[in-house]
């Protein structure tokens, strides 16, 4: 058996793959955050709570309406996205003219309310959600036992990231959206309904979080704190990638997943802080983030 850095190669390959899987969640979540920040200039602290909400909506759909995983994967983001529309229309839209801090406080408060309500309703240890029957089981890759579902998670989130990137960078809708962020009054003068675009952008970002929530439901315990566990790390990912950079959040999401995965082998105790260490270093060397444009 050949070794890498003193560890058996199969173990290392396994950890790389696991890192990639976790990176898929980081990428999806930070992508939604980056889209919202880039277009709305709102630091959406409610993102973790909405991720959690996505998982619970999928659970509710399955248990009360018998809606299966595949339909939930489509429906839950739509439902949570609609909830996002309500939030944006009634609350968040009032803050665009104010300092970032107000948006941060509001969305943080929303996260507390949503998580508190969920805890009241479901308790703290959560509810079970089964892996869909088509994706159960595992493949033997030789160096590790790869659950088919985890493979699906990487695939699904990579596709979703690509679609989002294409929409924003390569379509006319995306072009209008980017133009509206640069100069809203001008775009509006062309007869485009900018406030509605912004609402839909928020809904889209939120829907991405809910999509990640449904993907996560069969793997993690579906509980009210599941978003809180992720959100801080994901913010670090966004900061490292460069606030608002779409490509940056995708690439750093996957990359940091791998770095975290390797830390779990070399120094397990440090795996929860390694991303923040990277963040500090990146901020010292490139304050705008790896992919960000200097202000």
């Amino acid at each position, binding site marked *: 058996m050949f070794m890498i850095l003193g560890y058996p190669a199969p173990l290392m390959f396994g950890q790389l793959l696991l890192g990639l899987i976790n990176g898929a969640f980081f990428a999806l979540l930070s992508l939604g955050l980056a889209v919202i920040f880039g277009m709305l200039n709102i630091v959406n602290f409610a993102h973790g709570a909405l991720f959690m909400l996505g998982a619970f909506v999928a659970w509710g759909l399955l248990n009360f309406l018998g809606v299966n995983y595949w339909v939930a994967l489509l429906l839950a983001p739509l439902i949570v996205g609609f909830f996002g529309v309500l939030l944006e229309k009634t609350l968040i839209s009032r803050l665009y003219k104010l300092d970032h801090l107000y948006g941060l406080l509001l969305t943080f408060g929303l996260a507390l309310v949503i998580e508190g309500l969920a805890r009241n309703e479901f308790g703290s240890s959560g509810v*079970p959600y089964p892996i869909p029957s088509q994706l159960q089981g595992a493949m033997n890759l030789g160096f590790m036992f790869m659950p088919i579902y985890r493979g699906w998670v990487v695939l699904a989130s990579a596709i979703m990231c690509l679609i989002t990137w294409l929409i924003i960078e390569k379509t006319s809708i995306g072009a209008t959206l980017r133009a509206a962020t640069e100069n809203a009054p001008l775009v509006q003068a062309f007869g485009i309904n900018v406030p509605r675009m912004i609402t839909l952008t928020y809904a889209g970002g939120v829907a991405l979080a809910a999509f990640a929530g449904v993907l996560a439901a069969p793997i993690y315990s579906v509980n009210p704190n599941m978003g809180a566990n992720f959100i801080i790390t994901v913010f670090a990912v966004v900061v490292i990638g460069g606030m608002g950079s779409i490509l940056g959040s995708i690439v750093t999401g996957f990359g940091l997943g791998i770095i975290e995965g390797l830390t779990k082998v070399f120094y397990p105790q440090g795996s929860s802080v390694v991303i923040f260490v990277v963040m500090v270093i990146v901020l010292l060397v490139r304050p705008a983030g790896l992919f960000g444009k200097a202000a």
Partner: protein
Amino acid sequence: MVHPSALNRRSLLTGTAALAAATALPGRARAQKPVIRIGVLTDLAGLYQDIVGPVAVEAAKLAVDDYGLASKGYTVEVLVADHQNKPDVGAGLARQWYDRDGVDVIVEGGSSGVALAVSAVAKDKNKVYLTSGPATSDLTGKLCNANTVHWAYDTYMLGRSTGGALAASGGDPWFFITADYAFGHALQRDVSGFVTAAGGKVLGHIATPFPATTDFSSFLLQAQASGAKVIGLANAGGDTINCIKQAKEFGIKQTLGGLLVFISDIHSLGLEVAQGLACTESFYWDLNDRTRAFSARLRKRVPERRAGMAQAGPYSAVTHYLKGVDAMGVAEIKKDGAATIARLKAIPTDDDCFGPGSIRQDGRKMHPSYLFKVKKPSESKGPWDYYNVIATTPSEQAFRPLNDGGCSLVKT
């Protein structure tokens, strides 16, 4: 982390509201009869909410109702507050209750860190503390005192029952996945003791960051690669749930030793994932006629849930304390906490949850513990029908021998 501070505010409000409600209601009776005040200090909205929390509060109230106060010369008030799993908050509430609000006895009061702090306050104020939430066996060991009784379970009991049983059935060698804080290390220490005593080997452990870890697959694969036959999970709650779920996902064939698993965890995992798991509790609602009768009464208050051992603890503790009130009289039981505990130790315990038992010199409440195996989905008749009893450990053997704990109360 951002969220704990959030919890504070919310739980503080809940706590205060509950406190206000609890103190306001029985106001009228106060004038005629003396009042015994019982404080339930628990986790109302945090990580351990389902293990203790609201169900523990209702269990304590049920004990008061079951005891029948109509014919007695006193009334009982039950106060509730949230310690938020923070030792300083728990100790502050305990001080306030004992000093200002005239609370005579605090029940529940776990996690381990909070319990050690409250226990010290009880000693300081010479009051009574009957705790059932915490796991650490240090409460009746080197940190024992004359004002504290530890109900329900401890790390030694878990180690002996689950750890011992797995080791005895040929589960060897071991590898631990340990939550990287005091409780995880204590549990690993106690279980390792039984493994090596049974002639087994411990190959190593991984300390996982607490509480920020959600993905354990990496640690599980490392444990698998170690060549161990048993993977001991020296963690609790969400960590254990995630470990079990992900081990199943990755097709890990090793036996999983869930060392601290409550019925609420099984409920959350679902039987499809949890089936076959060995775990230890000192109470199960479907154990015998008495536990079933207790659970039927409790279900009227909390229809959605069933109690685990840490929630049955307050019922048993309150029942026993009220027996003490009858034996000593209201004035006497309020006077001197240490003397009250000494008297409580002299009275045999008996209640629907734990059956007949006793309280030992070092403050250990003695009762049998049960090794369970989680049912297959096909064996279960419905929600909460989860356990088959595999083995019963009689009370004398369930807990650490009196002389081994290093408790200063034990006179040799």
